[in-house]
């Protein structure tokens, strides 16, 4: 479980109410091809309560596709569930959260997205999504690999050829992670 300050958790609780109205407008959002976003290379996060009994957000699919000026990785969630997230460039090796083994990905930079409370498997032990290592071969995103699905935490690492600014967009039922393509 991710450590967090009380204030952050409270802020997250207050902001974590995607409704049906938002959902319809949110579905429009991906069509907006904003290639001029500034983005950041600093950590971005929105934490959520991990109160006992609150079901972990269930990951439905992860896809990567090019946009105009950026590559977009979409983390689609089951229903309206919204996990907390933290996105940051890894300073050191990225490790599989069970074995502790160092995970390698294509590219020289590693951008990590951590989801919590979340899971990428069902109650019967079946993975969701089944595809857990994508090699989309995009300009900014070379590989997208799952490195953790354990104890209510899900973590993916993006292998990038260069440290580029990124942005996170939270929609009802999905998280978008856009990484700017290089010049």
């Amino acid at each position, binding site marked *: *479980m*991710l*450590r967090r300050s009380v204030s952050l958790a409270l802020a997250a609780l207050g902001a974590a109410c995607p409704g049906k109205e938002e959902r319809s407008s949110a579905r429009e959002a991906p069509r907006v091809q904003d290639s001029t976003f500034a983005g950041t290379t600093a950590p971005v996060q929105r934490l959520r309560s*991990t*109160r*006992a*009994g609150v*079901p*972990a957000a*269930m990951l*439905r699919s992860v896809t990567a596709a090019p946009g105009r000026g950026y590559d977009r990785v979409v983390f689609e969630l*089951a*229903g*309206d*569930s919204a996990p907390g997230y933290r996105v940051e460039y890894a300073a050191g090796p990225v*490790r*599989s*959260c*069970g*074995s*502790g083994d160092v995970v390698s990905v294509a590219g020289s930079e590693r951008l990590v997205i*951590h989801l919590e*409370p979340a*899971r990428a*498997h*069902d*109650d*019967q*032990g*079946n*993975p*969701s*999504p*089944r595809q*857990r290592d994508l090699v989309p071969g995009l300009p900014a995103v070379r590989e997208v690999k799952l490195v*953790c*699905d*354990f*104890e*209510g*935490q899900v973590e993916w690492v993006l292998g990038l050829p260069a440290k580029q600014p990124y942005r996170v967009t939270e929609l009802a039922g999905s998280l978008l992670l856009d990484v700017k393509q290089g010049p």
Partner: protein
Amino acid sequence: MSKAAPALLVLFAACRPAPVAPCPAGQLVAQVAPPPVSRPSPFDSAFRAAGAEFHVPAELLEGLGWAETRWQMVQGTEEFPGRAPAFGVMALRGAALERGAALAGVPAEATRRDPVANIRAAAALLDLYAREAGIDRTRIEAWSAVVSRYSGIELPDARAAYARQVDRALARTAASPGLAPPAAPGACPPPPATGAPDYAPAAWRSSPNFDQRAADSTGVIHLVIIHTCESNYASCWSWLVNPVSQASAHYVVSEEGSEISQLVLERNRAWHIAALYDCTLNRRHDCRLNGVQSNHFTVGIEHAGFASQDSFPDAQLEASAALVCDVTRDRDIPRDWQHIVGHGQLQPANRTDPGPHWPWIAYVHRVQALCGEIVVDDSAQFNDTAVAGAAVPTTWAASDTTPDFYGGAYRWAPTQPDATDGAVFSFRVATAGLRTVEARWTSGSNRSPLAAYAVVTAAGDTAATTTVDQRTGGGSWHLLGTWTFPAGWNRVVLRRRAPSGAVVVADAVRVSATRPASSSGGAGASTSASNRPTP
């Protein structure tokens, strides 16, 4: 044993007419049976109304709601390709939800969001299933086939486990729960699986997610790591045995301690903690292991539940403590707070499990008690006051400078020729008999080579005084001797009356019902059972 009754009823209900032989007793269930659900559901009136409307026992609706969601309104949390999300208290899914909603005459959307509509739709569905099965609705056990159909579970043992869950809730209100797992006529339901390789009361559910421990000293099992799985029991172990998860633990303990699964042999390296070891997170214990991947030298125990829980069920803690007793006894691991530690303690960057409400002190005391030992610390905070107490005069200073003390610190005092203020460790013996007494200290070159421990019985007799060399051997237990103690509060007094120039360290005393299989020797306990008389 009254608590065992509902679960046993479930197990054996199908066997009552068995013509040949009664079913064998389920060992684990008989030992650690889950208590029935004690709290009332928040949806009692809805269960009653829907039950009356659709001629379904309200208790059954309540039991299904408990088994499915623990009476929480869930919103599409169990989705994966090919399986529709579950909604509401009754966890209705897909076509079943649509059908129940239609039968109850409520919109599907309301069935997803509104608990009353959700429960009515479930009741209507059960009514249909009961009609199709042509069951006698007045007998609760006749509903078992309906319950199985409702669950949508295909694996027989998983069906049985589901029925047991429903039964637990039924036991709260119904006089005689009895939703037997489906069984062929005359056949016994499978007993709860036991016979795991390293812990016989556990079920063996082998996981491929392991590799070999290092062959050198870093691969010696040395710590037990306590986890919470952030999910229910079945979800936890079923995921950790899937090769896709790339994670595992040696053991998983169920919510109520009624079942434990062993997934990985203890001698193998399970994948439960990503962190590299850092002794500063563990009271500077065993800094030689700094930088070693923590899976190498640890046994991982998952617990169904959440780090954010306000408390843990007593029965779960008890089952877990019995397991940890077994692991520490087999692996010769001291039972203290730097050898039995939380995942979050060693991996604070991104874990907190088992969370702030894991009762660490009481838990370790329970492990000790189940292993037949009493440990007396120099500080009351770390003592089980029912059996252990210490009286250390203020002339003994507290310190945690030298690592590998028991509890939170240790006390030390300089030797003095005329000192009379010894550090007293008291322990209560319930029934008179032979006990093995050991002592622990932190070592250093300034320690006394002849630290004297007097053993004083409850009758006031000094049984012996033994000396140890405290310059070495810190952080492990050293034999003082074995004596017969009367019932009552007996004492071990560490004296500092000795020529000046050294210090003695009062850290802890351990008393065991039988002589420990291996007491770390070689460091200077200078006595055996042939103790010298008090000088």
